[in-house]
């Protein structure tokens, strides 16, 4: 079965490539996960070159960081990747806390972990629904959003927002959680495993999906390292790199969870990594709820926050990969430079090389398996 054309056969009179045409998978397209434009030079159905063109939703958060105080930048962090906003706020808050040596009380850390993991599950549900919608199965999208509604209701109860939460503050959280949240989360943790099993039986084990994803879009571990691709992309290539285990932060060392890794490097491996990650997140949430200490949720923070000059960074495992914030401070109350290293940017940078010679539906399936969120790429 041909899955990749290594070289394009010469034209009828023997010269190199036969007619190619440029297909513009434009910014408005049902399969591009946002405003992404891919200029595909195609030979019939085979792609000879797929060049992503980005910048359609570039809002320049990094410049906004220079014009706002440290605390005023917090809402921006949620809007970089709105599907896993908690992680992004966590990274920025963590960087500032690290630099200013602010102590975070343990209860706040545990709640941060619980909300981050809930957000990870919500983000993976959106990915799952959207990827299957790309492949033509339009029904799982609705089921995924059903489960996601439960998470969004829980998070709305504690921070008032359904998507762009701005829940963490320097030194802790802005409000404490209440009993409704704890009971709701426990109920959710019980509700999810049968649903995940149903999805496994109905969707993951579906022969058409298996044929559609297995062996498609191989990305070697070496390519991931060279391009800086992280998250499920590198874990689907056999490398067990997860920021929560390799560069532990917050209270993650207290929990017992596995890093799902599949060595096959194809789209199916990345798919299975994310499905298993949801189960591991449920484990972490359950352990965190059991270990949740009582106490305050806000540490001591100076009134006007000024960081000592220098550069600091903090990395978290967001839903899509490694998100790192690098802040440069010159002692004032606004940052001198905020660099946001987003996972989807690096994950997409390998698309041009990885999709050479693929056929169009396979290239789109591979793009779906990379889990791109375009505002994450463009910032």
């Amino acid at each position: 079965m041909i899955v990749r054309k290594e070289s394009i056969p010469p034209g009828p009179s023997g010269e190199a490539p036969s007619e190619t045409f440029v297909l513009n998978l434009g910014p408005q397209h049902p399969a591009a996960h946002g405003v992404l434009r891919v200029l595909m030079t195609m030979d019939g159905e085979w792609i000879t070159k797929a060049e992503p063109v980005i910048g359609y939703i570039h809002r320049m958060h990094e410049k906004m960081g220079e014009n706002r105080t440290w605390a005023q930048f917090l809402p921006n962090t949620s809007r970089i990747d709105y599907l896993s906003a908690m992680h992004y706020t966590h990274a920025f808050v963590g960087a500032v806390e690290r630099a200013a040596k602010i102590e975070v009380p343990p209860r706040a850390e545990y709640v941060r972990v619980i909300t981050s993991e809930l957000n990870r599950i919500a983000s993976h549900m959106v990915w799952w629904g959207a990827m299957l919608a790309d492949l033509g199965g339009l029904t799982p999208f609705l089921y995924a959003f059903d489960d996601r509604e439960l998470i969004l209701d829980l998070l709305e109860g504690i921070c008032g927002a359904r998507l762009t939460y701005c829940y963490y503050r320097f030194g802790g959280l802005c409000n404490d959680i209440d009993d409704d949240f704890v009971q709701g989360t426990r109920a959710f943790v019980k509700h999810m495993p049968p649903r995940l099993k149903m999805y496994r039986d109905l969707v993951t084990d579906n022969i058409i999906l298996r044929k559609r994803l297995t062996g498609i879009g191989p990305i070697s571990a070496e390519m991931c390292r060279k391009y800086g691709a992280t998250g499920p992309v590198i874990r689907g290539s056999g490398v067990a790199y997860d920021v929560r285990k390799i560069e532990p932060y917050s209270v993650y060392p207290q929990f017992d969870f596995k890093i799902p890794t599949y060595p096959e490097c194809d789209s199916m491996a990345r798919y299975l990594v994310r499905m298993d990650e949801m189960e591991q997140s449920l484990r972490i949430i359950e352990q965190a709820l059991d270990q949740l200490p009582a106490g305050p949720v806000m540490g001591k923070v100076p009134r006007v926050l000024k960081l000592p000059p220098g550069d600091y960074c903090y990395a978290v495992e967001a839903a899509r990969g490694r998100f790192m914030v690098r802040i440069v401070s010159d002692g004032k109350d606004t940052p001198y430079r905020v660099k946001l290293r987003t996972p989807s940017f690096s994950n997409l940078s390998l698309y041009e090389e990885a999709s050479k010679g693929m056929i169009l539906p396979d290239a789109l399936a591979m793009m779906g398996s990379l889990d791109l969120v375009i505002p994450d790429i463009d910032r």
Partner: protein
Amino acid sequence: MKPSIEQLTEAFSCLAGPVPAEVTAPSWPVAVYTVDANLKGYHFDAAVSPAQVVTAAEILDRFGFGLDAVTGVDWIAQNEMEVVYDYFHPEINLRVVVRTRVPRASPELPTISPVFPGANWHERETHDFFGIRFLGHPNLTPFLLPEDADFHPLRKDYQP
């Protein structure tokens, strides 16, 4: 492969020495620091001259590091621009930062995209935001900004 800080220090110390004459040298010697990761977030900091960034990238590639980000900082008061390369290691907790400085009037340094192809996009973005030219880069056209943009927004003297 799991490198240690000692191995990195030794590898980078071989970069010390005179800077080649044809590159306009900033006033920095090669300096290597081990850093308090709890405070800064990275373990190893190497300040190199612009001509040596490719060698530094090759050293780190040999040790199995992955490219995290390439970015710039505009130090307008010192009339220099700093280019910062972040690297992470997929197997151990060891973060390396390689930094260099170029003069603001003619910010040029070689590209590391032959060593780390992922740098292609990062360098293009840094060029977009700061105007830093990466010599040897295949395609230094506007990336995040509109195709006809000729301004560099993250410079401190940028007026919209």
